[in-house]
């Protein structure tokens, strides 16, 4: 039995513009029907990666392979790839009405004239725009959200195998963005279409994606499910870019035996904490771990449960965030640590900590992520 190849595969793909490498030996694959996100800060190469997949850019000579359905498509034109694309700017043709925008691709694909109106209407239905109201409008007569829907309908009407979306929700306000996130997710599931989604918004990527490729400085830093990426970030960059992370550094001591957390790490100021086993740790070498704010807890000195790592500090600030309260603690070495505590209602059940309190920041040794050196 032959396994079906991934619908998209990047094999060590590189792309340079002049002297600068926009995409550097990027590899990942996308499964059929998956909602796959390319996530990273601006300038990390995610848009160039998408454009390589779309066919607007060609990999460097000896710059690896872009495959669609197992076939190398490096030099195929965009219209030879069965893709659809939604642009950040929407890229609706301003001189054409909504229906003519949507019909554009059908006309270019020589779909019989008689079929076109029906297919345009169905596409408008998919994005929940009433044809009677919107078909004859020009793009400038639409709101941002409506333009977004038309752009989506224009791509979907051709029934592409892969839909590429380049920060499509970036220009919408928060409310509308949340609504469109849900709708895109629903379309992805109901149409069974593969979505490749570019965004710099980590929350959006976590909320929508089946899997995420986190990009940084032209390379893929990590590929995984949202839970992988958030709970097992491999590098400091990933830990810091997706969610918040407190970093602790130190030097590994001798490996203990038989425990879940065999390593004891000593920080520069003499503080010690236990760390779980990790192939990257060697005796005497530096270790850096990331601990999410919600993995930390606060105690009064001397009240820390046995077996937990404990580092002393002073409360510097308390930040009200709605669902959670962030307590910012100044550690003995001067660095700041954020501790997230559940907000149980500040009016009825306020936090017991005040600015200036002497506290101990504590976490269970297994609740941390050992980071690879970058």
């Amino acid at each position, binding site marked *: 039995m032959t396994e079906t190849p991934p619908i998209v595969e990047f094999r060590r793909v590189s792309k340079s513009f002049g002297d600068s490498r926009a995409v550097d030996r990027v590899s990942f694959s996308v499964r059929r029907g998956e909602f796959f996100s390319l996530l990273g800060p601006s300038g990390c190469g995610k848009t160039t990666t998408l454009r390589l997949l779309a066919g607007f850019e060609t990999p460097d000579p000896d710059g690896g392979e872009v495959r669609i359905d197992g076939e190398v498509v490096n030099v195929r034109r965009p219209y030879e790839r069965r893709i659809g694309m939604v642009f950040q700017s929407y890229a609706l043709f301003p001189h054409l009405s909504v229906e003519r925008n949507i019909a554009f691709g059908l006309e*270019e694909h020589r779909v019989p004239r008689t079929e076109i109106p029906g297919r345009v209407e169905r596409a408008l239905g998919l994005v929940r725009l009433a044809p009677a109201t919107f078909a004859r409008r020009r793009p400038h007569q639409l709101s941002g959200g409506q333009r977004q829907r038309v752009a989506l309908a224009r791509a979907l009407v051709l029934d592409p195998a892969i839909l590429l979306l380049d920060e499509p929700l970036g220009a919408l306000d928060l409310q509308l963005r949340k609504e469109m996130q849900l709708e895109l997710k629903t379309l992805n599931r109901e149409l069974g279409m593969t979505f490749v989604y570019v965004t710099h918004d980590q929350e959006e990527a976590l909320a929508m994606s089946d899997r995420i490729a986190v990009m940084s400085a032209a390379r893929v830093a990590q590929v995984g499910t949202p839970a992988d990426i958030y709970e097992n970030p491999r590098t400091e960059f990933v830990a810091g870019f997706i969610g918040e992370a407190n970093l602790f550094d130190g030097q590994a001591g001798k490996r203990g035996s038989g425990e879940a957390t065999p390593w004891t790490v000593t920080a520069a100021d003499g503080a010690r904490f236990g760390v779980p086993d990790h192939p990257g740790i060697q005796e005497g070498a530096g270790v850096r771990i990331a601990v999410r704010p919600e993995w930390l807890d606060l105690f009064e000195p001397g009240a820390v449960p046995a077996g937990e790592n404990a580092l002393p500090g002073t409360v510097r600030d308390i930040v009200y965030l709605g669902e959670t309260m962030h307590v910012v603690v100044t550690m003995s070495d001067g660095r700041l640590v954020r501790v997230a505590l559940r907000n149980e209602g500040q009016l009825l059940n306020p936090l017991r900590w005040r600015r200036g309190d002497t506290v101990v920041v504590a976490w269970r040794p297994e609740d941390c992520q050992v980071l690879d050196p970058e």
Partner: protein
Amino acid sequence: MSSSPRRRLLAYFARRPAAGSWALLTPGLLWLAAFFAVPLVVLLAYSVMHRGTYWGVAPGFTLEHYRRFLDPLYLAIAWRTLWIALATTGLCLVLSYPVAYVIARAGRWRNILLFLVILPFWTSFLIRTYAIIVLLRGGGVVNSTLMGLGLTSAPLELLYTPGAVLAGLVYGYLPFMVLPIYASLERLDLDLVDAAEVLGARAFARFRRVILPLSLPGVAAGSLLVFIPSLGAFLTPDLLGGAKTMMLGNLVQNQFGPARNWPFGAAVSFALMGVVMVGLLAWLRVRDAEAAA
């Protein structure tokens, strides 16, 4: 605290924003009134008055000068003027569009290329027209090259032909076509072209269905900027066309100059202006109809 005149002036304009607009418009309006509106009215009056004995005009009202313009002799000049102006516009368009397209996509070379486009303006148009004479005359560069290559045995008659006038006009007005088309292409959102390509449009379809329609405002502006001065051109046909290729501009100049028939010259001017206005209005109607569709 005493309020200075400057302060009182500023306070006055702060209370009346419209007065500020008028203050900004007035110098320009006065200029146009003195040197455009008044002469135009005078010219209109001349065109329906009698011819003066030696020069100028004599009192009285007549439409004879407009009737005279309908003489086949003058209609032939009008017809030649029209087709030369149209051909100039068409040639400029065909030559300029690719140039403008390349400049709009030229990245860091863009400013240098734009500079080169307007460079000829740094020399007098008259001198540049004489340079064309040097190129085209009997023993000129073009003829000696053709003969040197053995392509022709005797000098071709290039100068003092409609072709020479056309060449001169196209050369002179090319930048007026390039710049507006460049401006509209430069504004064009390249995502639109990419979007068309994903939707299946090959290179020619992308041009025909997206790039060209969206650059039409530039094409229209450029065409007007070339067509209107071409209609009224007189220096170029005078120097490159000679007596055989007279255009309406030369006719007007002739009537105010050697022929000393001011009323007829004025009538020809107004006839020309009428044609331009009708053309312009028709074009605006078409454009608005398209925008509404």
